[in-house]
């Protein structure tokens, strides 16, 4: 049967076909939909973990128990999961284990564009890289076989264009006859004391040599001979761009990017006149090929930053003066430069109407706080007109950054420092930071924006939301008690729709020369679960009372539009009743009582 699947749907299908028992992960674009799609396969135990390290360790446990396990995360999640990954490489697996790392070249929704292939090499584990949805499914299946055959965790690297791209996939039946999980004791292999680890490390090195030899004749690494003039080594999404832009070039398509099948590379290099590597981000393949003494061109012409596109690849080759291999020549009479249009108003993302984060950032801006930020929808508090975020590094960093910054500041500036963090991010790694802050008594203020969901990545549940990935009820983490338990003595809960209260509590806690936590209690407007978010009555502007002072525009709500003045009159604000969620924050800003409910 054929279906159009996204890369993420295809990976989920591959996990199902491979007989996976346990799936764990932490949301992160572009990886999130893998677990959400695995849910449809009822035999798989699928769940969210509070962070990627935990997810990884849950998967390792399942593997040690003899079940196949898949763990999913975005590229930066691998940083968090790296600790167990590196040592799991030494122990090897019980049931097959596959780690999906989804990269985000171009940083469509990420804070950096690190190249996960380096992790595979660093941790000495094999990595597969699919080029379309069919390969996402097939390679996921294959990865489990390799994992068991070579006794190693296997990484599979996707990227935004693969995970969120769709193409046609031929489905298969799941495997059968896998051994049933059960306890098998093997402590000298699984307890990585130095004495045991010293025995394992040489086996890891041997394994990589064997895998490279295996890769040289495996069907997933394939040579496509066409024109002998230009030969291109490529993998993953880049393969498609090479085929698009250089239809006549010979291609060595690598399905496994670590370890590299250097014999195959050498052989291919001999058959072509000029050898290129086309790869997104780092010169990962290129540097190894060059180190093997093979002449090759790569990042001299191919951009190292951002994603590739057919246009960028074509540009790279034509700018370097390379012809042949079917590179399209500019057509006759088509020498005109591409269409240029004037600069237009941009359309950056914005918090939703009624978002509970908005009033908090407005208040932080008013109080001239120095805000150490974190990652989530609330990072949009950086954008004008809120302009209320000063730092943002990685998940959990807001609290520890605040704790660090107050240690160097003069007394009068310490109280300006406020860390802002979401509920999911707080439970991900923020809790460790809060423990540090309490332990060492840093006099900063922390705001936990508890909107009862992991909103940024598309509304995933988390340990504080009270629900699991499978939509089953769970005991929600009590954030107030948790903060108290790590040693924070001042914990206050505020309604972020009440600007006066929010301001009062913030000033109180900012002035307190002790660590303190403020927790906001309004849910995300996107939560669909019944009884969580309830839309308020839409507000409207009374034209006769509106003085055109623009105070209500300062919260940057998408439902409020400034209507410029027609000739001889004053401009005024206007609320779109279809967009307004009735949070009431704008009404509190109006000094002229021009905003009211209903109508």
């Amino acid at each position: 049967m054929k279906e159009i699947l996204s890369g993420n749907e295809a990976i989920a299908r591959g996990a199902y076909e491979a007989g996976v028992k346990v799936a764990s992960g932490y949301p992160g674009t572009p990886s999130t939909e893998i677990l959400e799609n695995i849910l449809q396969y009822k035999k798989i135990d699928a769940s969210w973990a509070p962070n990627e390290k935990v997810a990884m360790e849950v998967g390792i446990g399942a593997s040690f128990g003899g079940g196949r396990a898949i763990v999913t995360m975005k590229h930066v999640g691998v940083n968090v999961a790296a600790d167990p990954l590196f040592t799991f490489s030494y122990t090897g697996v019980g049931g097959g284990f596959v780690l999906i790392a989804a990269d985000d070249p171009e940083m469509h929704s990420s804070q950096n564009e690190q190249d996960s292939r380096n992790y595979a090499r660093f941790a000495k584990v094999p990595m597969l890289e699919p080029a379309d949805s069919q390969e996402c499914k097939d390679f996921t299946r294959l990865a489990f076989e390799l994992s068991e055959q070579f006794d190693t965790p296997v990484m599979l690297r996707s990227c935004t264009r693969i995970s969120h791209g769709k193409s046609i996939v031929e489905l298969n039946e799941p495997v059968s006859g896998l051994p049933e999980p059960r306890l098998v004791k093997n402590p000298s292999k699984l307890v990585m004391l130095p004495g045991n680890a010293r025995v394992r490390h040489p086996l890891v090195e041997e394994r990589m040599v064997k895998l490279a030899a295996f890769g040289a004749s495996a069907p997933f690494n394939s040579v496509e001979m066409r024109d002998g003039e230009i030969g291109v080594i490529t993998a993953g999404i880049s393969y498609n761009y090479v085929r698009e832009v250089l239809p006549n070039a010979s291609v060595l398509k690598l399905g496994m990017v670590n370890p590299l099948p250097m014999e195959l590379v050498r052989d291919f290099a001999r058959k072509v006149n000029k050898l290129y590597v086309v790869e997104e981000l780092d010169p990962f393949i290129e540097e190894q090929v060059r180190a093997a003494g093979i002449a090759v061109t790569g990042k001299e012409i191919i951009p190292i930053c951002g994603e590739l596109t057919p246009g960028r690849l074509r540009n790279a080759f034509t700018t370097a003066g390379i012809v042949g291999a079917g590179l399209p020549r500019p057509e006759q009479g088509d020498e005109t430069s591409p269409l240029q249009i004037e600069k237009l108003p941009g359309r950056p993302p914005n918090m939703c109407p009624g978002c509970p984060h908005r009033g908090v950032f407005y208040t932080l801006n008013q109080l001239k706080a120095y805000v150490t930020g974190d990652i989530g929808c609330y990072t949009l508090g950086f954008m004008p007109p809120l302009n209320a975020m000063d730092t943002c590094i990685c998940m959990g960093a807001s609290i520890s950054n605040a704790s660090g910054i107050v240690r160097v500041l003069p007394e009068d500036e310490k109280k300006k420092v406020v860390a802002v963090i979401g509920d999911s991010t707080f439970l991900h790694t923020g809790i460790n930071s809060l423990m540090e802050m309490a332990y060492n008594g840093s006099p900063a203020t922390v705001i936990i924006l508890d909107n009862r969901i992991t909103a940024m990545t598309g509304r995933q549940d988390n340990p504080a939301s009270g629900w699991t990935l499978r939509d089953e009820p769970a005991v929600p983490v009590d954030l107030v008690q948790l903060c108290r338990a790590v040693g924070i003595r001042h914990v206050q809960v505020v309604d972020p729709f009440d600007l006066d209260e929010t301001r009062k509590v913030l000033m109180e806690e900012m002035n307190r020369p002790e660590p303190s936590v403020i927790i906001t209690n309004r849910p995300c407007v996107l939560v669909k679960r019944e009884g969580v978010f309830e839309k308020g009555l839409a507000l409207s502007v009374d034209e006769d009372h509106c003085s055109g002072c623009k105070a209500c525009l300062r919260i940057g709500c998408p439902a409020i539009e400034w209507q410029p003045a027609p000739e001889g009159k004053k401009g005024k604000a206007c609320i779109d009743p279809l967009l307004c969620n009735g949070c009431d924050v704008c009404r509190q800003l109006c000094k002229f009582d021009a905003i009211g409910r209903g109508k």
Partner: protein
Amino acid sequence: MSNSVTNILLVGVGGQGILLASEILSEAFMLGGFDVKKSEIHGMSQRGGSVASHVRYGKEVFSPIVPEGEGDILFGFEMLETYRSLPLLKKGGTVVANDLRIPPPSVLLGQETYPEDLTGKIEALFPDFTLVDGQKLATEAGNIRAANTVLLGAVSKRLDIPEVCWRQALEKMVPKKALEMNIQAFRMGRDL
């Protein structure tokens, strides 16, 4: 050149239902016996930012991204985004756009103005331009939320796919209780 591939770009604002529309298109192309690839960005862009989805079909499709300046059809859900995306189209390409204006943040704040006469500007650059009042037609069909389906109908007329494939694609992708209304909305667009 190997341009047996047809390139369609769907552009608009996050939350407008562009993903579903591009999914229906892709499904219809597969049912029509073609290879199909599509690509778009989720994530940040869903918070009201610009969204673009690329759909390509033909005998064999490699890149899921439409090469710059090679778009055959631009399917715009919002006027400013339609205009912004014109450089993606090939010379003489086709534009089908929804007559809808969604002001971006700087316009809401009164710092910039929404560009005037986009219809005229688009038409001057791309004479093969169809402006559709999706909202009005969808309301006539029974639900303003079917505006995308009306547009889809208008786009479908420009593609060489049998009508039955469109119907099957709608049946697969649209919830049962909204199906009849959507089929009607699709017809309205197709008959424009």
